[in-house]
């Protein structure tokens, strides 16, 4: 199962001109907003930190993770990045990765760049991070809570992007396909891919939480919520 390329990277000519233009305008607006908002997450460190995080996502997508029962998956990384560095910076990182893949690797069409940014940047990050926020509000404010929330968000972000793609295809696809069948097939496949994405995301967020919890944007509440412990040896005094 190779979900890195399967999930997105729409090539040129897949959708008609109005759909491509509309998603392009939507993507441009979102990126413009993210450029302004990312400064609130990273201030003047935005360019180097977002650039290096984008380089990390780019490299991380090449890792072949064993997921379950002999299958392996690739990371898409939208929710992972949003949990690690915040949604606006994540949006910029995903946009940078998609742009470089389109321009340098011819992966994803130039005229479909807006569509790809909409699917992977906008839908995956916004839906994923929305689910993450919603789950962290409900779940206990612990390490396990954050991990469960990022897993759920990563799981849902993949079928959300796939269903958006099916919706765009219904609007601007060049073929008369039975959309209901396509939608259910795509959802089925991407629920499985979403499971892989969730497993990888939880494992990686857990690994970062174990060594540098302060770097995990989505776990900021966790640090302040930890109760102040009194670790003075009182037990010995009481025993006396």
């Amino acid at each position, binding site marked *: 199962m*190779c979900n890195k*390329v*399967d999930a997105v*990277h729409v*090539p*040129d*000519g*897949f959708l008609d001109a109005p759909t*491509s233009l509309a998603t392009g305008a939507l993507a441009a607006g979102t990126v413009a907003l993210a*450029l302004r908002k*990312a400064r609130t997450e990273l201030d*003047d460190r*935005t*360019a*180097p*930190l*977002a*650039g*290096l*995080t*984008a*380089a*990390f996502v780019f*490299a*991380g997508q*090449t*890792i072949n*993770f*064993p*997921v379950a029962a*002999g299958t392996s998956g690739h990371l898409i990384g939208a929710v992972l990045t949003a949990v*690690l*560095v915040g949604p606006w910076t994540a949006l910029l990182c995903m946009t*940078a990765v998609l*742009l*470089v893949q*389109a*321009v*340098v*690797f*011819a*992966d994803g*069409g*130039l*005229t479909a760049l807006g569509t790809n940014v909409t699917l992977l940047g906008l839908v995956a990050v916004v839906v994923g991070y929305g689910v993450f926020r919603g789950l962290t509000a409900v779940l206990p404010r612990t390490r396990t809570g954050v991990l469960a929330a990022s897993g759920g968000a990563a799981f849902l972000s993949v079928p959300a992007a796939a269903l958006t793609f099916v919706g765009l295809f219904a609007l601007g696809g*060049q*073929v*008369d*396909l*039975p959309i209901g069948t*396509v939608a259910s097939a795509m959802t089925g496949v991407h629920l499985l891919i979403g499971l892989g994405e969730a*497993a*990888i995301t939880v*494992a990686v967020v*857990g*690994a*970062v939480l*174990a*060594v540098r919890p302060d*770097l995990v944007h989505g776990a900021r509440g966790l640090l302040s919520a930890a109760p102040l412990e009194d670790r003075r040896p009182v037990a010995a005094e009481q025993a006396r």
Partner: protein
Amino acid sequence: MGAGHGGALTARYLPGTSVVHRLEPHAKLVAVLAFAVVVVATPVHAPWAAAAYAGYLLAVLGTAAVAGVGPGRLARGLVVEVPFVAFAVLMPFVARGPRVEVLGLSLSESGLAAGGGLLAKATLSILAATVLAATTEPRALLRGLQRLRLPQLLVQILMFMVRYADVVGSELHRMRVARESRGFTGGGLRGLRVLAATAGALFVRSYERGERVHLAMLSRGYTGSLPTGPAAVVDARSWAVALGLPLAAATVLAAGMLLG
């Protein structure tokens, strides 16, 4: 930060001195984008569509020949298309509309045309973009995007990404060498944990490198913008050369529309 270079990113560029290499990057970007627009604008169901695709293919292959980009390189560029080949091949089976019998299979006529058109369009655009990437350094491509008024901050992010993509990639490679020389074979849930720790460490190292880069930039007087030299003036002649590819494609399209 002495990491080896020559990763996936820099390997995309083929050094050369051809006409295509010497063109300004933003002119080439405009040309490839315009070519993709012409290809995409071709109606799939027109009877002359196949002839138009053949014309575009000739134009792209001609450009590749001028640029000295060999067939092997072009074929490797097409690898990214593989998942969509599967999608296109399925189309004749699932699309609705009148059916035709091909080798005993009942296929949808519109699905056949659409699947074929989809493949042709994706292939042509990928070929053009492969020529662009093979004749333009990644950094030059970003300067081209900058001249095309991509927001300054996004260009800076892209600059840092392109600068460090191979550094981070080779860091990942060294981690793999270290892992495997200690007997790691992967697979199963334990493999996932080990690889997740690798990715986590890679993130921490990348992020910390970003912090060091930021401090280094501050100490060199970074104020939020990266100085670039004066933009080269592009004369009408080199624009004409650069736009040769999309103009040829547009001629083919116009001929098809008028004659077809």
